[in-house]
């Protein structure tokens, strides 16, 4: 039974991706470009050499952590649409650490990770408490928190972290204070690759362990599948809602750290980080499974980092990548279409097999007679 559900999720994900790519192809055709050429350059832009692969991975790092954040909240039946705001706050905390804390590297990394997690967790725990205490819908609360973060940073950065030239971004952090690492940069021959990769992969396995092997994970999932049943079984539902949102927020905060102090080295104001929403696509496509999130983040990372190259080589605007991602979300949301389709395919097969068995049996009966 479990295997069947899993393969179903996989089939749905693959169908959504294929339809998303197909829609992207149609869009390229509609402006008179050759879709095969477009996709060729899109994938080539993401994968053609070590540096490009490094960039794909470093884009995927952020998406992975956001995807994990959304997936983790999903497991408790919560929809964390506030990853963008949590990223901003976590990223701001990390940036502050990068500007003002000067201690040996290993301690420094611990401090920056801790602060980014804490910042995101703070932004996530507020909607969690509102949900637990006052039954305020977490979707609305997290959206409000997004814009509170957006405007707070809009005014905080120019006031306290003003860059030397541009009004719209914070001053850059020193490269040795960022998550970039000389040996990683050397392996990949430059690019944006940074230590966030270990944070992201580590987080994937920690979350997988927490969900699959611990009491906390069991309780969170129990609340997600049926909160009344969980309550009846003696699980403290409200406590779990708060914990779930806190950890989800913390993960998004880590995503903000990898983006603002690893991928880039400053915070731009007036920009809601789009990864906060792409992460929803990552979680949905990965069927809220940590390992699924890992692979879908790599896939979306490739689309995002290849789009610039594609735009340089063809007439296709870079927004095609975002269009494909959005289409994939739409098709995952409407996945009932695919599950009906695959179910009917499966049923036909089963029916045929059943028919065959019936026929064989009747034959046997005949032969017995």
């Amino acid at each position, binding site marked *: 039974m479990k295997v069947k559900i899993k393969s179903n999720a996989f089939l749905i994900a693959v169908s959504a991706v294929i339809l998303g790519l197909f829609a992207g192809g149609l*869009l390229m055709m509609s402006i008179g470009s050759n879709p095969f050429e477009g996709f060729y350059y899109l994938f080539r832009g993401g994968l053609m050499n070590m540096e490009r692969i490094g960039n794909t991975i470093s884009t995927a790092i952020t998406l992975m952590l956001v995807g994990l954040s959304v997936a983790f909240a999903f497991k408790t039946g919560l929809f964390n*649409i506030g990853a963008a705001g949590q990223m901003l706050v976590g990223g701001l905390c990390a940036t502050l650490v990068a500007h003002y804390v000067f201690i040996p590297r290993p301690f420094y990394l611990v401090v920056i990770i801790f602060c980014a997690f804490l910042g995101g967790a703070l932004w996530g725990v507020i909607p969690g408490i509102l949900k637990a205490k006052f039954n305020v819908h977490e*979707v609305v*609360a997290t959206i409000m928190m997004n*814009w509170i973060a957006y405007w*707070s940073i809009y005014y905080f950065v120019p006031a306290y972290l003003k860059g030397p030239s541009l009004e719209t971004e914070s001053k850059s952090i020193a490269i040795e204070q960022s998550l970039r690492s000389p040996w990683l940069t050397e392996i990949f021959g430059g690019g944006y690759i940074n230590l966030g990769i270990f944070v992201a992969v580590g987080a994937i396995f920690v979350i997988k362990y927490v969900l699959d092997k611990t009491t906390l994970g069991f309780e969170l999932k129990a609340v997600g599948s049926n909160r009344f049943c969980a309550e009846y079984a003696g699980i403290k539902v409200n406590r779990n809602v708060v914990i779930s949102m806190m950890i989800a927020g913390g993960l998004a905060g880590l995503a903000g750290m990898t983006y603002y102090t690893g991928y880039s080295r400053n915070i731009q104001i007036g920009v809601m980080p789009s990864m906060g929403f792409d992460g*929803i696509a990552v979680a949905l496509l990965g069927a809220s499974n940590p390992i699924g999130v890992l692979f879908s983040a790599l896939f979306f990372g490739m689309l995002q980092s290849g789009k610039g190259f594609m735009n340089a080589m063809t007439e296709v605007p870079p927004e095609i990548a*975002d*269009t494909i991602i959005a289409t994939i979300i739409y098709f995952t*949301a409407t996945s009932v279409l695919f599950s009906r389709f695959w179910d009917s395919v499966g049923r036909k097969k089963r029916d045929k097999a059943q028919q065959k068995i019936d026929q064989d049996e009747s034959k046997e009966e005949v032969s017995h007679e």
Partner: protein
Amino acid sequence: MNNTTTKKSLFTSPLGIAIYIVVGLVLLALLATNHLIGMILPYAIAYTIPLLMTALGGLYSERSGVTNLGLEGLMLVGYFASALTIRLTEQTLQASALPLGLLAGVLAGALFSMLHAFASINLKADQVISGTAINMLASALTVYLARTIAGSGNVRIMLGIVRKDIPGLSKIPGIGTLFFTQSYWSTWVALIVWGASWFLLYKTSFGLRLRACGEHPSAVASAGVNVYGMRYFGVGMSGALAGLGGSIILITYSGEFNGTVAGLGFLSIAALIFGQWKPLGILGATFFFGTATTIANVSQVIPQLGVIPPVIFKVFPYVVTLLALIVFSKRSAAPKAVGEAF
């Protein structure tokens, strides 16, 4: 019994409170120098109208039982469609390109919202996820099309609405100069749409049925009403009105499509909640938010307001919405069946 509860609730309901806040705000403004109101009010109204239209769209959708988080994207689609239409026709049609642009925005919004309607009504998809997909799709697709059709991600138009005095009414002392001078015609169109919507939703049997679809769809269905059709209408209206809101941004204060409506769609959702899913409530809430936005924008130039950091005004709408949600969490005015597939 029913009568007394409505009377009581007028004083304690969010609607009533929203009215008090608005009245209080206006009185406060009157206490300040007349000059200041004269400066702020036109901008406040200009910011309010797109929010009002979009929140009203959200009202149709949520009252019919479909959550619409895609308002931001639907606004953007209207914003883009009207920019493109006006850009392509303003040379030949001159001033009549503007109404044509509004119409294009309305139609594009309605058409795009059908994606959400199909997903959430026929396919029973998660409406929150579908709405998120609409937002992402709109922001990617409009810029994609702008780049290919207009050559760049920004579409600038030459025309804009000329502000005009309303003959007769503008001569009334006090109110006349505040509300009827230098106004956009789109503002009056929007207010008529608002009034008509109130009438449709609260004074006709069609409106009663539509609202019932958001409360108890199976009861409505057993009375022989087509719930799917009603919900399609609700979502379609939300697309049309959000598209109208986006177009009004373009032809009043923006003058250029730039790929984002900067969260105004989400602010409209906040207004819808803060206005407790009622036409008068959202009128108050959007005016309130519009005024807060204006004050934040102009506080740098006006010394009387410079003492309060602008971030307070910008964050304000979201914080009060959260507070409103907490205060009214015990008895939410949200339609009971909103977000549930039928």
